[in-house]
């Protein structure tokens, strides 16, 4: 894009928003005289600007401001302390439902705390029971012939002489 074209583009962009200044109009005339092929495009641009400018404004009710002021008074801004409790907003509307919801939440919290405490205690009890079973094992004196007894249990053939003597 050369300098002239850039200037034309800037004039077009200015025309999208507002009426052109006298300097801009003069620059436009010079550009269109030098580039007659751009005249059709400019005509369309100008026509669209004109139509957009003349679009009817939306109707506004005569008591709009009064209604807004009334609504703004009704929806007073929240105080600073309530901003601290912004999370509170997702609770249901109304004091009683909120109280009920909070009670349920606190109840659930206490219940889960008690459950976790009970679980912890049960785990401790199981661990203590394991320790007590270890304490109930035979003493070391009983275990001194363990190897001999163990070997006897591994003899596969019956000792006939011993059996006969025993009879």
């Amino acid at each position, binding site marked *: 894009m050369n300098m002239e074209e850039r200037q034309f583009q800037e004039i077009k*962009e200015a*025309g*999208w*928003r*507002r*009426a*052109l200044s006298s300097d801009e*109009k003069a620059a436009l005339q010079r550009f269109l005289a030098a580039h007659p092929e751009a005249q059709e495009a400019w*005509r*369309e*641009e*100008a*026509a*669209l*600007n*004109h*139509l*957009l*400018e*003349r*679009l*009817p*404004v*939306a*109707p*506004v*009710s*005569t*008591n*709009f*401001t*009064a*209604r*807004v*002021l*009334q*609504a*703004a*008074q*009704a*929806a007073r*801004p*929240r105080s*600073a302390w309530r901003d601290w409790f912004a999370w509170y907003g997702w609770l249901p509307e109304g004091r009683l439902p909120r109280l009920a919801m909070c009670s349920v939440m606190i109840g659930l919290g206490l219940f889960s705390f008690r459950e976790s405490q009970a679980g912890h205690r049960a785990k401790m009890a199981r661990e203590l029971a394991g320790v007590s079973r270890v304490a109930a094992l035979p003493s070391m004196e009983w275990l001194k012939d363990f190897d001999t007894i163990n070997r006897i249990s591994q003899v596969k053939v019956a000792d006939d002489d011993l059996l006969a003597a025993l009879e």
Partner: protein
Amino acid sequence: MATPLDPDAALMLRVKRGDMKAFEELVEKYKQPIINMGFRMLRDSDEAEDLAQSVFIRVHQSAGRYEVSAKFSTWIFTIARRLCLNEIRRRGRHPAESIDSSQGDREDQAPRQFEDVKTFSPPEAFLQEELAQKIEEALSRLPAQQRLAIVLCRQDELSYEEIARVLGCSVSATKSLIHRGRETLKAKIKPYLRSGAWGEDDPKLCR
């Protein structure tokens, strides 16, 4: 050198201190542009008013946290844009519901009152109305962001930089949105543009 305070921001600082008169001044100044924007976006004058009312209530509710960081007009149009797009999205999800159904306090409010205004004189009324209708229709078929860019572009208060801030994109992207939207509009109303029916004899057109 300190930049002078935007007069609307100064009014907003008074609203922050609880001055309802300042709030009323802001409502008076911005009601027409915000309702126009809502009307072009939602194509319903009642919904445009409801939207504008929501915008002003948001402004009032946010007054306590308001800090002068940008021009007031940029801020209020950004709120209006968000509410417009939310409404368009909501309509997409629940096409049969009106914005009224989400405002339970309507019964407590005074009914709307309109002035009886005639916009065009009888001889040119028909053609101008037809043209206005054509362009409104063509506008309404543009993608929301292009339509918004074109509507905001006609707001005297906003520069391209500010429009870009409202739309949440760069200045070049904003100009591109406007350009593409305008090209679509031109294509749709080309026969009217070429016929000169839009009033090319109007002296104001030498622009």
